[in-house]
């Protein structure tokens, strides 16, 4: 473990923590602009976090320890996920601890905990949210895994750093399998981050809500952690997308200068990605909840087709 590796690991963690709310703010701002609304400030998510952290936490009378533990666990999972995705550099000491499959497992762990916590209080909305979250999860999870496998097949590895290194070094050729997988990945990330065709992050008190129904009983610092975790998740997903499909500009081992350059490159890439996301959210209408499985099954099938294309064309 080199010193530079340690530095880049720390940088990755701190950057994820700081940039994640900013990314959410950026997306919100663009979406408001695209929808002809007056936009909130870019720093609004930080203000919300600060406000929530300062408030007292109101717990339901019969909420168990599981309910109180969950925000911390979910936050921890999302932070670890952001830490192992090579965003700035591929020289990450934590990265060998978890590969692509473990990354999906990490998201699943957070999902299971947040669903259990939603069921803990035993309200109608909470259990509804838990059921729907698991419904989204059981199709989105394998789809994400298949997308990652497409990249794994090309680099013959499930280690995230190796995948990014291989993809960054290739010629500027388009892999047909990655093209299909990219579409699948976009669909999955929309669903996983509670974005518009599947869920609406703006909504509250709506019968079809998913993510908001899960965190309905949380308040104060717990809610702040969950909100932060949600923006970390968006950040992590954006980073996976960038790492798989636009990996150029990521620093490699023993390259301090590249590390400095990697940050502005990442910020620009994220900014563009955020605008695209805001555009998708504006251009689409929310689906009925019963259509969500079809949407996700399409993503799943696309990802599998990507894998098949990969084998047929023999890139591996």
């Amino acid at each position: 473990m080199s010193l530079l590796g340690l530095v880049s690991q720390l940088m990755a963690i701190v950057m994820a923590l700081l940039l994640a709310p900013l990314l959410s703010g950026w997306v919100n701002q663009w979406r408001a602009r695209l929808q002809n609304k007056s936009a909130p400030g870019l720093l609004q998510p930080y203000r919300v976090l600060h406000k929530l952290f300062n408030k007292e936490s109101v717990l339901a009378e019969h909420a168990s320890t599981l309910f109180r533990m969950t925000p911390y666990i979910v936050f921890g999972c999302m932070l670890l996920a952001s830490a192992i995705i090579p965003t700035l550099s591929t020289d990450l000491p934590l990265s060998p601890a978890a590969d692509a499959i473990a990354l999906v497992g990490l998201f699943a762990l957070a999902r299971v905990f947040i669903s259990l916590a939603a069921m803990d209080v035993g309200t109608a909305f909470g259990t509804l949210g838990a059921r729907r979250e698991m419904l989204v999860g059981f199709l989105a999870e394998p789809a994400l895994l298949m997308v990652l496998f497409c990249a794994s097949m090309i680099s013959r590895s499930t280690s995230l750093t190796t995948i990014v290194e291989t993809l960054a070094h290739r010629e500027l050729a388009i892999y047909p399998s990655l093209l299909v997988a990219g579409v699948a990945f976009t669909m999955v990330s929309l669903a996983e981050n509670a974005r518009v065709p599947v869920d609406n992050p703006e909504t509250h008190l709506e019968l079809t809500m998913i993510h908001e129904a899960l965190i309905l009983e949380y308040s104060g610092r717990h809610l702040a952690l969950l909100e932060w975790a949600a923006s970390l998740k968006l950040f992590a997903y954006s980073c996976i997308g960038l790492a798989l499909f636009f990996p150029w500009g990521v620093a490699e081992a023993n390259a301090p200068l590249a590390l400095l350059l990697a940050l502005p490159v990442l910020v620009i890439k994220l900014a563009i990605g955020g605008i695209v996301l805001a555009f998708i959210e504006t251009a689409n209408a929310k689906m009925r909840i019963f259509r969500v499985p079809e949407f996700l099954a399409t993503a799943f099938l696309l990802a599998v087709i990507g894998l098949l294309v990969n084998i047929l064309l023999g890139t591996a």
Partner: protein
Amino acid sequence: MNGFPHFATWVHLDWVLVVVVAWLLIGVLGVLALKQFRLVANVLFPVSGLLSLVLLGLALSAAGSGPEVAVLPIGLPQLPFHLRLDSLSAFFLIVIGGVSAGVSLFAAGYFRQGEGTPPGLICLEYHVFLASMAMVVMADDAYAFMVVWETMAFSSFFLVMANHRIAEIRNAGYLYMLVAHIGALGILLCFGVLQANTGDYTFASMRAQHLSPFWASVAFVLAVFGFGAKAGILPLHAWLPEAHPAAPSPMSALMSGVMLKIALYGILRVSFDLLQTRIWWWGVLLMALGLATALFGVIFSTVQVEMKRLLAYSSIENVGLMCVGFGLSLLFSAYGMTALAALALTAALYHVLSHAFFKSLLFCSTGAVLHATGERSLGKLGGLIRYMPWVAWPSLIGVLACAGLPPLGGFVAEWLLLQSFLFTTGLPSSFLNMLVPVVAALIALIAALSGFTMVKYFGVIFLGQPREEKLSHAHDVAGWERMGMLWLAAGCVVLGLIPSQVITLMDPVTQLLVSAGLAQTVAASGWLLVPVSIERASYAPAIFLLGVMACFGVAYLLVRKLYSGRTRRAPPWDCGYPWQTARMQDTAEGFGQPIRQIFEPMFRMKRELPTSFDEQPRYRVEVEDPLWHWLYLPLAALVERISKVIGLLQQGRIAVYLMYSFVTLIVVLLVVKQ
């Protein structure tokens, strides 16, 4: 054994036999002390748990050493029992010892006076069951194997029938017995093929035979059929969701956690050890069967409304996944890719081990819930985490392991299995290569669905508000049961955190079966689990756990330090609706509804919907296994029709019977004359 060798010269096998005999003795003591309930509960079962630990230790130390053989002069004259303890047997003894230690401790506190069969009798059946399972994995000739195999079937049959006064339980027991015997026929025929007309039924002689591909395939298919019936492979799974709920919970734990694995041991023994040839389509067959079984099991387990039935279907799913691993290993091994075969086999064996622990744990937890509340229907439970924390928290570990989540045991198995699929792209047949991503995708889907099931299981039983008034009086489990559950939960955690060490333990097994192992690459990387090479894939559950814990701790401390830690308790908000009741929570039916809708063609559903004019609206839905209607009932009708035709022969008049004898005699004479 001639004479009586000195203790110092005893090998592992002898000591394992001592444990087996001690178990049988405990069983006999249980019957002698039929009325002494306290003795059975507080002495016999805990001692048996200790013996299980001894067995675990013996098996662990035998795993690395070479095969040991013994000949026991019991049974018929000229037909002694041949026993052999090799690394494969040792591995399954580890499963038996490790799991039964926890289950026996749990059973010590579980049985109550005056319920169904007296505990003393259960003690006998239970220990005969344990002893026979240990003997099955050590049997080294077909005769001994069949004797102990049938002993296992019968003792478990009696355990299933513990509450035989209930008609449903009698039906379940009958079905179990029927399927067990159909399976046993398959096994018997399989051994018949394997001995290749030599008349020598020892396994050693079977290993020496080189069967033609046709006869080898016949033996393989018979083995899959026979052992598959016991393991619950489609379409012979029907007994499993009936028998598991019928048996007392510690018995379901042993049946699901250990006995299903013993059946898989049979498949392994025949296809990897006794048969010398391997043909590629065997692996494909086993994989296809396993996939169908796993998919069927997991989809049905999501819609179950009874807790033990849900777990039983989940066991079907897990057995399917293990078969997929075995099949893949067989496929690789048929093409001579031994390293990959070892990877797939290790994945499946890891799944065997971790499933044994977490499923026993979950079955024990259903037993505790059943005792405390008297309810087995999910729709009448809820909120038990507040009244039964000693059951709820270990169950949470079991649930997370069953859902295949890191950093627990279930995830390691799943991880290894997916890894072995990812490295598959070198198979000589392009058709098989095409199948690989499809199978991997289905496995990922199955794993995610089992997460759905487990959230439903834990959420509906332990979380939320109690759906019935009486649940708030539920009592928590006491000492023995706590110890048993904690032991099993600890097993899940240990299997999750030190995969490298566990895989090193499995190395002799894979060396024996596919003559390759992962130990070298794995041992070189310490805490990091690296099956092939570090660039390809690595996973470090300990660091993983530390990472999440560190984030958890730092976040907790910082939030508490920098901001307020104030907390207030208030009624739940629920969007400001104040009149909510426990009935407004999602029920078990409701939670499974989306899956029921998505996979509707797979079910046979009966649905009663209320109309808008109903005075007392009722909603009822029943989900049935379609295979019952497509396969089992037609078969039963066919058997009945045939037996009616045969019944025509039975006229009940002596003259008619004499005529039968006469005609037979003439026919025989004619045949003999020619």
